[in-house]
């Protein structure tokens, strides 16, 4: 079977690396992906057995770790508080989610924004070796807001139809 990087496992690894590398500058990311891609190609030229490929990818290390080595290295203090906007949006989304109807149309998109922003901030903090509690809280609240809004809409809609 023909795959982009010569092996299914290699493709998976490169996808994970690309995702992790989203925090790097475009130039750095392209360079890193090209180098690691060439490394994998050179390894695959020697062997294509699944175990050997698995070992080679394990030796390369976790994508997050590889990307961390490429990061210019912001201090843990510099990334603290990056999750605050996500937390605020998460709280607003959660409150709005409790309002019938308004909740579904406003809280769901807001919740998505909180999850995405929070996840980005969490990743950035982790790369700098820190843990951003507000980013994680933002992600969690965003999820809860979406679930609440959906549940509320599900329970309320039949009643409204019946009474209407």
């Amino acid at each position: 079977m023909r795959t982009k990087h010569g092996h299914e496992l290699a493709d998976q690894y490169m996808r994970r690396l690309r995702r992790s590398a989203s925090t790097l500058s475009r130039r750095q990311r392209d360079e890193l992906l090209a180098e690691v891609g060439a490394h994998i190609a050179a390894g695959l030229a020697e062997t294509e057995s699944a175990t050997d490929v698995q070992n080679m990818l394990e030796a390369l290390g976790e994508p997050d770790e590889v990307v961390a080595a490429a990061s210019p290295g912001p201090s843990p203090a510099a990334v603290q508080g990056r999750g605050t906007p996500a937390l605020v949006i998460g709280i607003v989304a959660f409150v709005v989610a409790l309002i019938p109807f308004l909740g579904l149309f406003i809280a769901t998109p807001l919740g998505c924004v909180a999850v995405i922003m929070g996840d980005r901030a969490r990743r950035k903090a982790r790369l700098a070796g820190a843990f951003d509690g507000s980013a994680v809280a933002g992600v969690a609240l965003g999820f809860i807001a979406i679930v609440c809004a959906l549940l509320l809409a599900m329970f309320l809609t039949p009643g409204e139809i019946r009474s209407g």
Partner: protein
Amino acid sequence: MQRMGATAGVAAQLRRGVLEYCVLALLLHEDRYGFELVRTLSGVDGMVTSEGTVYPLLSRLKKDGLVSTTWQDSDAGPPRKYYAITAAGRSALEQFRQEWRAFRIAVDSLLEKEKD
């Protein structure tokens, strides 16, 4: 909001400081391509734990002008990017060699004293 990663081992911290000079030393007598460099490094016990982290290091060395790169055709497969040490790289390595010698002697003397 505690600081994570502070548990990184002593070996990892030591490695971080010297790895780039080990790369320069490997390039002193011959040009090497990435895969070959990485394999040689990880063949030395305990030198590299995650091979992928060598590539960011190589691009930093290039940015600092300590190594240069050229593309060369290979007998099998796509062209390879070869790394070569520059004059600045040589002098950085020479400087490190001296520092390392003094440092090793200093640390050894303290450790030996500890034993008595």
